[in-house]
């Protein structure tokens, strides 16, 4: 989230799209209801079906799965053509005035940007850039009238997204779209603010990053970013998934979003040069210029005394992403690639913690096959899962194998659950909140750090005894904890915060970090969370002097206890808030006050530093230059990889040209609309949490069985009655479940043709209470990924439905 849960209550308009917050974030949804009750806020829900959020929305629009960029593009066009944009904000806080290179083009007929190489199947993004002056700074036209200014290019780009075109693509009515557009763009005046709440309905696409970029573009046009009641707010799906992301859970970065070094970065110097950006405007703070401080402090935290100035702070021990010898490209070890590599026999073992990949998918059968290629599998879990039991006859039967065919050795380690261990949870709002163990774990179940600690100590012992090809990264890792077999949560939290190595004191904030090896810090964003004052994540003070829900003495909000990111954008050039009743930060003549400023705290507004201090331009990017995203600088609508209709904007290029499509196993298949005419989507239910709560009798009672939601018209056509068992078949496999026939899902009319949607929740499988009969929705989903985030396309794939 750019903002936070409590801040949703400050919004005038809330767009819930690509998410179903009432369903999946019921506790956070209280702030939506508060905005409605206290501010008369308008809630617009856009989704593939009328769901719980729609039930309390002021306006609902049903759109076809995967057409969100068309809808958002339509909103952008509506705002730009009806003068419903915040012009002063655009000029001051975005790159709308920047001038783009002459050779940047978008081929409207063929649906590709300049630099497209059909043979290689990728873009050369050289032309996606600004024009620069002699000092290396981007040229700007403050009037935004230059034909190659970002503003004019954007206006032209989105002029194709007319209300009629949006309605044709999305399958909604023009009136429904226009009513939504009228409400959503009503926040363009400076004293109005609107927010967007989204979740996996936007991230689960082969164009997911561009989709979120489209949302950010809309919010910037309306002047809604950096302000109380505004922002682009990702609703994270697990209690600590934000914390996991912050701590380098992805393969491509280390804690604090520091890129993982790549094979060509042979020295620390080379690496730092590659990852430290240079300012693109004279007034850009360009905070990532401090990257060397973050990196060196992190290396000190990792390798301790073994990291010295003389040895480049043990950079030689630091993992580097290798090049794939076959392709010459860097290896990809994101989620779906891990299982693809595994299916090819390139992986010996897997340690699976807190996840259930057989059900998580996509494409359950491929995952089961991949696991069967392992030599060993370790599963640390609260309950037995489909992954731990993948060798069971009923589960292996889905890939036509028997237990005796599988040689994988499986170890199950009982793990403590969330209530059985202390530590911190970082929520969607970036609040790191300390929690305390409620009860001891049962039996031999252990907290994660003990499982990891014991494995690490054993591995280190083996390296000590037997040596190995490269033992130093393990032997020299700074494992300083009082109990190395079960490091305490406090010690780990202190290490993440970091300390001054000359005084031994905890650091107060990341501004104290140095690149000379005198500070250590596990994650610069969490520097300030556990200081000499103590564990600030454990704070529980409800003081709210501004009444805007900042709660600065509740927990710790990274970065720097800041509640709203980019909050300098809440004020005009003179430092006056756009809306005096909802100030983010205000210049009081000496310093910025209000929220913790996302800005040099004592820099007067006349100095004119850009509000977006993490971006080299100093302003927000409507146009993302230099291949920031591999599929284009503007968000363009592409159909999902499996789509019932061609892309009406450019039928010659319906899909994202650089989407990742696997062709490894026999199940890596895509279906065609002739065979699979129905658009399917997976989703989650409020009654369940992933594949975990199917072990809880109260929740199983609330939703006892796998079901497929479908419109009445489809059911009538197929002779299906409510509650009947139906088969759903995709190119990857089939599942059986009960039909839930509803008027909350309606057929679409696309190009004069009727297209039916169906939807199914993901929470069932083979193991658990209630009726677990293999109704795992991800048996159907394709192994297709977004080319930037490598997130699978769980939403918007093709199936057919039959009465069983």
């Amino acid at each position, binding site marked *: 989230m750019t903002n936070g849960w409590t801040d949703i209550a400050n919004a005038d308009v809330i767009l819930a799209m690509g998410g179903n917050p009432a369903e999946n974030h019921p506790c956070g949804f209280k702030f939506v209801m508060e905005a409605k*009750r206290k501010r008369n806020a308008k809630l617009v829900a856009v989704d593939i079906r009328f769901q719980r959020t729609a039930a309390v929305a002021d306006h609902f629009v049903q759109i076809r799965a995967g057409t969100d960029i068309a809808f958002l593009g339509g909103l952008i066009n509506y705002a730009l053509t009806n003068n419903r944009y915040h012009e002063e904000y655009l000029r001051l806080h975005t790159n709308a005035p920047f001038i783009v290179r002459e050779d940047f083009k978008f081929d409207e007929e063929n649906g590709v940007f300049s630099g497209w190489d059909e043979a290689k199947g990728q873009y050369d993004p050289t032309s996606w850039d600004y024009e620069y002056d002699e000092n290396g700074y981007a040229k700007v036209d403050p009037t935004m009238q230059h034909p190659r200014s970002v503003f004019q290019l954007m206006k032209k780009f989105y002029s194709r997204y007319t209300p009629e075109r949006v309605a044709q693509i999305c399958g909604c009515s023009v009136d429904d779209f226009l009513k939504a557009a009228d409400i959503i763009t009503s926040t363009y005046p400076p004293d109005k603010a609107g927010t967007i709440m989204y979740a996996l309905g936007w991230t689960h696409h082969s164009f997911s990053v561009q989709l979120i970029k489209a949302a950010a573009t809309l919010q910037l046009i309306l002047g809604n970013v950096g302000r109380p009641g505004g922002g682009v707010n990702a609703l994270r799906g697990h209690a600590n998934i934000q914390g996991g992301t912050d701590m380098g859970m992805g393969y491509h970065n280390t804690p604090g979003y520091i890129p993982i070094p790549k094979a060509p970065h042979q020295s620390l110097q080379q690496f730092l040069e590659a990852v430290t950006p240079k300012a693109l405007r004279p007034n850009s703070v360009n905070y990532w210029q401090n990257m060397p401080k973050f990196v060196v402090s992190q290396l000190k935290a990792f390798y301790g005394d073994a990291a010295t100035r003389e040895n480049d702070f043990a950079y030689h021990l630091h993992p580097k992403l290798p090049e794939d010898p076959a392709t010459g490209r860097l290896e990809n070890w994101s989620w779906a690639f891990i299982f693809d590599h595994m299916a090819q026999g390139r992986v010996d073992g897997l340690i699976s913690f807190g996840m259930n990949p057989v059900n998580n998918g996509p494409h359950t059968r491929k995952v089961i096959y991949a696991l069967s290629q392992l030599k060993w599998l370790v599963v640390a879990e609260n309950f037995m899962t489909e992954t731990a039991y993948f060798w069971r006859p009923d589960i292996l039967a889905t890939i036509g194998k028997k237990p005796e065919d599988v040689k994988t050795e499986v170890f199950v380690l009982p793990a403590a659950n969330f209530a059985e261990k202390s530590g911190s949870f970082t929520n969607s709002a970036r609040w790191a909140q300390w929690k305390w163990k409620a009860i001891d774990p049962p039996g031999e179940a252990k907290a994660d750090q003990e499982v990891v600690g014991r494995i690490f100590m054993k591995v280190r012992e083996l390296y000590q005894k037997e040596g190995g090809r490269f033992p130093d990264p393990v032997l020299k890792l700074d494992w300083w904890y009082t109990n190395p077999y079960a490091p305490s949560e406090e010690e780990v939290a202190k290490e993440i915060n970091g300390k001054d190595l000359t005084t031994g004191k905890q650091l107060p904030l990341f501004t104290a970090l140095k690149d000379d090896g005198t500070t250590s810090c596990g994650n610069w964003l969490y520097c300030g969370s556990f200081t000499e004052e103590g564990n600030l994540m454990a704070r529980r003070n409800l003081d709210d002097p501004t009444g805007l829900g900042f709660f600065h003495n509740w927990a710790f909000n990274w970065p720097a206890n800041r509640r709203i990111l980019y909050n300098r954008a809440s004020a005009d050039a003179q430092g006056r808030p756009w809306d005096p009743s909802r100030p983010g930060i205000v210049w009081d003549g000496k310093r910025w006050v209000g929220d913790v400023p996302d800005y040099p705290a004592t820099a007067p507004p006349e100095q004119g530093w850009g509000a977006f201090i993490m971006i080299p331009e100093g302003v927000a990017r409507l146009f993302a230059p230099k291949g920031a995203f591999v599929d284009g600088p503007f968000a363009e609508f592409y159909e999902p990889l499996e789509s019932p209709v061609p892309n009406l904007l450019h039928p010659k290029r319906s899909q994202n040209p650089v989407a990742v499509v696997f062709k490894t196993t026999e199940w890596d298949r895509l279906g065609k609309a002739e065979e699979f005419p129905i658009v399917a989507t997976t989703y989650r239910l409020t009654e369940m949490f992933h594949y975990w709560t199917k072990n809880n009798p109260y929740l199983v*009672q*609330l939703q006892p069985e796998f079901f497929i939601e479908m419109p009445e018209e489809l059911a009538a056509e197929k002779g299906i009655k409510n509650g009947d068992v139906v088969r759903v078949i995709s190119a990857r496999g089939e599942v059986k479940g009960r039909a839930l026939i509803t008027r909350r899902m309606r057929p679409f009319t696309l190009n004069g043709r009727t297209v039916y949607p169906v939807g199914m929740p993901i929470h069932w499988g083979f193991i658990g209470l209630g009726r677990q009969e293999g109704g795992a929705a991800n048996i159907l989903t394709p192994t297709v990924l977004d080319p930037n985030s490598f997130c699978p396309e769980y939403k918007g794939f093709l199936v057919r439905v039959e009465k069983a």
Partner: protein
Amino acid sequence: MAFEPTAIKAVSASVTPAPGIKNVPEVIKLIDVSSCIGCKACEVACQEWNDLPANVNRPFFGSYQTLPDLDWNFWQLIKFNEVQRDGRFIWTLAKYQCMHCGDPGCLRACPAPGAIVQYANGIVDFVQENCIGCGFCITGCPFDVPRLSPTTGKVYKCTLCSDRVSAGLEPACVKACPTKCLSFGTKDQMLAQASYRVEQLKAIGYDKAAVYNPPGVGGTHAVYVLPYGDSPEIYGLPRDPKVSFVDVWKGGLRWLGNLVIFGGIVGAILHYLRFGPRRVPEEEPVEAGAPPRPAEPVPGDGGNG
């Protein structure tokens, strides 16, 4: 029930106790239907607080609604109805439970001394030790709320968490509600809050918004704010509930009532010992979009155990 005797207002089949001197305010659970997201936290909180077993193997019946209707172990149920209204499609999400009537038909109908108690704060509670399982309360309830357990032969329903309330806490469902759809407080506070919310809803276009606090049952201690207040039935609520059974009982046939009280009660017990409890009436109209009610097996020997 750990209530002090002075806080009791009425007891079934008994003389009304002498009024206490304590000034006990009446309480109300307010249900603002416009804020309900159907999350079912209230349903589970109720079961967990009251240690009620879960129906793990309940059948799927093609709805998001947990059960077709209330059950002996399921005292709070959110009803999900798909309705077309004023050219607009709506999915009503409305919690259903005991209304804790000001004039409780169940209590009036109950022949078992001390089986149903109305406290001075308005809570109507069943005392299972004294329940004879006759089912008169089921017939007497204009909201069709009480449910007979086939295993214990006793009748159960929402207690408005009388145990929590007596300890100064809100009911479990209110505590669990994430959207403030449910509130709990004194009658005055809650009715004022309800009126305020109705005015808010009217201001944003729900011109039929209304408070549901039916006078036919003496007002209730579960009060609703309904966005479409002119159509309570779309939320699964009766339009104009009345304690009709009680009117007969307490009106012209009072002599018959006296006869029953003084002489017939033994006969009634013997009758039910012989023939078992009454079935739950099934002739109730099915709401638009409401799921069909499956036949519920009621063992013939229920109530004899």
